[in-house]
């Protein structure tokens, strides 16, 4: 076999990998859109659900998901940025660096159901919080910490050392270097990381289904110790009534809305990344 043939075989291999990948994605989204669009209507988006979701809309589920992710980002971003700065600027020994790396990757690798069980045992049973949307937000915030930390850390760490040196030589102390040289860059990384993390958090069912959500009769929570209803847990509830065609259709509709929210988050992360790459460092 000559190298020309090998080259074309290689090309075919690569192309089929791409085709399979995008084919599956295209198929999924097409089915979702075709099935889901039938359920979507003004009423579906802006009324509350009845009869465990089989009738009515998903307004409170959409609002619930949005409340949840906003709380998650408020809780998670400051901690993550702090960890990223500490990791990049304060930890000098490579042993500790490797240790924190391992810890962060481990945290990232924990299956989401484990977070759910942890939340159930620690918050609901030991701290006796009851079913609370806020506890759910805390658990989701912990879950997306690694994503934001790594993204922020990478953007700080990629700043050439010359910038730190130049700023130091101009009389800036460490705190001033961090706030005026590193943070502007770090925030961009944190922003991208947050959006990716949120895209994951908004679609999670397992971590919150025991501790933060209820399947029926939920509106907008007025206190911290109240349950919330979210899109993914609502889809779960609807899927359990799959024999009812109306419930199934609503499940498709809710899925389409959820995927649209995730898509919006991912797209804004992408746009942000493209904008940022134009800044030259």
């Amino acid at each position: 076999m000559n190298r020309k043939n090998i080259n074309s075989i290689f090309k075919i291999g690569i192309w089929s990998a791409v085709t399979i990948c995008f084919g599956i994605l295209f198929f999924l989204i097409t089915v979702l859109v075709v099935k889901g669009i039938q359920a979507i209507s003004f009423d579906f988006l802006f009324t509350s659900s009845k009869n465990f979701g089989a009738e009515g809309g998903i307004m409170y589920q959409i609002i619930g998901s949005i409340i949840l992710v906003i709380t998650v980002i408020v809780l998670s971003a400051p901690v993550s940025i702090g960890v990223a700065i500490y990791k990049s600027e304060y930890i000098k020994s490579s042993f500790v660096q490797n240790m924190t790396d391992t810890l962060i990757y481990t945290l990232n690798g924990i299956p989401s159901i484990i977070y759910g069980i942890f939340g159930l045992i620690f918050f609901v049973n030991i701290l006796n919080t009851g079913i609370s949307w806020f506890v759910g937000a805390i658990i989701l915030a912990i879950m997306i910490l690694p994503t934001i930390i790594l993204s922020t850390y990478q953007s700080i760490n990629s700043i050439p050392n010359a910038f730190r040196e130049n700023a130091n030589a101009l009389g800036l102390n460490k705190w001033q270097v961090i706030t005026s040289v590193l943070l502007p860059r770090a925030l961009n990384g944190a922003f991208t990381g947050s959006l990716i993390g949120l895209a994951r958090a908004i679609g999670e069912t397992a971590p919150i289904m025991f501790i933060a959500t209820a399947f029926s009769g939920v509106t907008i929570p007025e206190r911290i110790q109240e349950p919330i209803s979210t899109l993914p847990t609502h889809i779960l509830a609807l899927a359990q009534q799959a024999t009812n065609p109306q419930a199934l259709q609503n499940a498709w509709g809710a899925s389409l809305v959820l995927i649209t929210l995730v898509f919006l988050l991912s797209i804004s992360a992408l746009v942000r990344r493209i904008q940022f790459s134009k800044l030259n460092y």
Partner: protein
Amino acid sequence: MDIQTITHKNIQTDLGTVEISISNFSLAFHATKILKDISVHFYKNKVNTLIGPSGSGKSTLLRCMNRINNTTEGITTKGAILFNSKDIFKDNNDLSYLRKDIGMVFQRPCVFPKSILENVVFGIQHLKKLSKTDKLKIAEKHLKAVSLWNEVSDRLNEPASSLSIGQQQRLCIARAIAIEPKVILMDEPTSSLDPISSKTIENLIQSLKKQYTIILVTHNISQAQRISDQVTFICEGNIIETGSAEKLFNHPEKIQTKTYLSDNFCNC
């Protein structure tokens, strides 16, 4: 230790007032000795040049004077560097004060991703509060001092990265003198520049010495010859010879200096 007790004092009194005095200074990086028992003076309002082959320790010595390698792990020092009759290594207060007095310009220009104006005031605005007009005044004054004003006066709010490398280096000098230091350390400031930009920087150094003490590291002997007042030849962490530029270039005492100046080669 007092300035009076420094051994080199008797050798060059004709060069004027001593600004920085290095006394029996040694530096090691882990087990490697980089500077070995160095004693030398740098003079006020002069261009003090450090020459030597690469790896000789001249940049390391320069970087000790504002303690910019303070954060590098594994560095140990012995001896003293006297500035304002105080050992800069004794005074472990805020290094910002030291660096306010001893500014630095690096080998490669490094502008912050901000406007030209913001770059000039980048250091000074952390030391005192500035209004918008203050910033403009400071920028104008120091951009004029580095003869960059005519080229950028109509685009002060454009990103500094839009300037050419030579202009960026002059911007970095403007940024350093904006904090009004007494000494400016320059670490091969022309080595990444084209010949014309280098010439501009050389002329600039000549005019800056009226106001500031310049300590310059260069590996370019002819550049050292053109602009130095005092020259120190360092090789393998030792000072081989130091003295006025006129004397060191025309009548070097040591055979190593002669070889280095003629063949750009050092066997010490």
